[in-house]
């Protein structure tokens, strides 16, 4: 019975001030989308670091027209170099197999690539990865080398970009969260004002504090949850449309985002949305519904 009363109050409350409710939900969902994007990026960078840093440090890509003699000269030079710890030859086939593993979630992308379009390479682990410059200088003059790439440097640049995107997303999330909080606070004030007679009577006859406050807090929580669900939907759609679709080019550097991670955002956003709204509502009530 009391539950029914409280739920009814919540629905009536949300409907009574429907423009505010909508504003609340929109800001909340934008903020939570940004939060979710930022967390996803964070997880992504982490995953990529694990994936790449454990792998070969310096790649020496060979020209398509490299001769066997050139190849063995390069192999010898690497083996004899004092900086080398270990080396590994990667054929076009090897490269393609690896490629298939990394992009297993994007079969279309795999289809567009053949083993021939990938270069052969030597993957060299240095005793001290910082010595990359010296090592590259010593190797650079050799015939048949297309390019020498220190993956660490390359990855660092990529990760720096990701980190700044993540930071930007966090800042937007924070600013929107602030706006959402102010809206929640204001909505609660308006609601408390429009129900001031009921609240006065409830206090007079000794209704418990939680009973007086619950409808207001739940109103905010409901808006927070709807915002979170919307935010999650935005996030999911963006992932599908942008990364899996249009911006597939980007996925040359980005390892695919597992759908499991994206689903993980639903409970996270819902939890954050509900908790933040509840706390804001409750704090606002402490000022506007003094017992």
């Amino acid at each position, binding site marked *: *019975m*009391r539950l029914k*009363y409280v739920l009814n109050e919540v629905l009536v409350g949300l409907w009574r001030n429907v423009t505010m409710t909508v504003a609340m939900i929109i800001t909340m969902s934008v903020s939570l989308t940004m939060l979710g994007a930022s967390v996803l990026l964070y997880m992504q960078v982490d995953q990529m670091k694990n994936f790449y840093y454990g792998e070969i440090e310096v790649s020496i890509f060979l020209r398509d027209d490299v001769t066997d003699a050139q190849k063995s000269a390069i192999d010898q030079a690497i083996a004899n170099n004092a900086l080398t710890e270990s080396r590994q030859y990667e054929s076009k086939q090897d490269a393609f197999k690896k490629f298939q593993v990394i992009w297993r979630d994007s079969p279309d992308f795999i289809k567009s690539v053949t083993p021939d379009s990938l270069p052969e390479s030597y993957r060299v682990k240095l005793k001290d990865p910082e010595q990359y410059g010296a090592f590259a200088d010593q190797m650079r003059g050799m015939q048949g080398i297309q390019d020498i790439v220190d993956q660490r440097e390359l990855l660092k640049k990529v990760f720096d970009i990701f980190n700044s995107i993540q930071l930007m997303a966090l800042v937007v999330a924070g600013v929107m969260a602030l706006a959402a909080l102010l809206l929640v606070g204001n909505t609660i004030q308006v609601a408390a004002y429009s129900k001031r*007679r*009921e609240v*006065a*009577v*409830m*206090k*007079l*006859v*000794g*209704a*418990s*504090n939680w*009973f*007086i406050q619950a409808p207001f807090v739940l109103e905010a929580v409901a808006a927070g949850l709807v915002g979170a669900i919307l935010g999650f939907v935005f996030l999911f759609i963006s992932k599908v449309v942008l990364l899996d679709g249009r911006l597939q080019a980007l996925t040359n550097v980005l390892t695919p985002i597992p759908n499991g991670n994206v689903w993980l955002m639903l409970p996270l956003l819902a939890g954050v949305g509900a908790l933040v709204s509840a706390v804001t509502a409750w704090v606002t009530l402490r000022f506007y519904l003094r*017992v």
Partner: protein
Amino acid sequence: MIQLENVTKTYPKASRPSLDNVSVGIEKGEFVFFIGPSGSGKSTIIKLLLHEVSPSNGKVVVNAKDVTTLRSWKIPHFRRSIGCVFQDFRLLPNRTAYENVAFALEVIGKTKAVARRVVPEVLELVGLGGKEHRYPHELSGGEQQRVAVARAFVNRPLILLADEPTGNLDPDTSIEIMRLLDRINRTGTTVVMVTHDSNIVNQMRRRVIEIESGRIVRDQARGVYG
């Protein structure tokens, strides 16, 4: 039942105390008038008893509970043993007489079934039988105050506090409300009533406590307005 011991109340920002070292005891089942000029501190006493404000000094005991040391989360439960009526009725305009009284029950956790049994009974008691489904604006002032009394009494409180309950009513209606409160008092409920109405006080010949500038200047067992 009610004990004020050396109670002083100075509101924040006020230059002088609204109640100044007041001590008074009220027994179970008593009927007490508080009278005195405007601003003398009568409503402040009611607020202290309800724990709407706390005393600056001294002790307030209601129903054997020291209100001064009552934890704030216990206040709601404490208030359920006290009924309250005010000059301005304080009814919910969008609810009928029945709903206004039932609301008071529902928000303290009573079921609808209980309300269905008790509310008609108490509305009958206050003389509103047959007007249960009128909205406040469809009732006269006296009738609205009866609804308020029904709401205050429906929970069978030990104490009924009334702050100028007849302040907005004409003399005849005032007498009717007064009779109603008297009837409630006869059920054993302690009634504390603040009033300016000399007529009523003189007719009832009950205990009269007169306050002036926050001090008790008279406490008479079968007093008159004076």
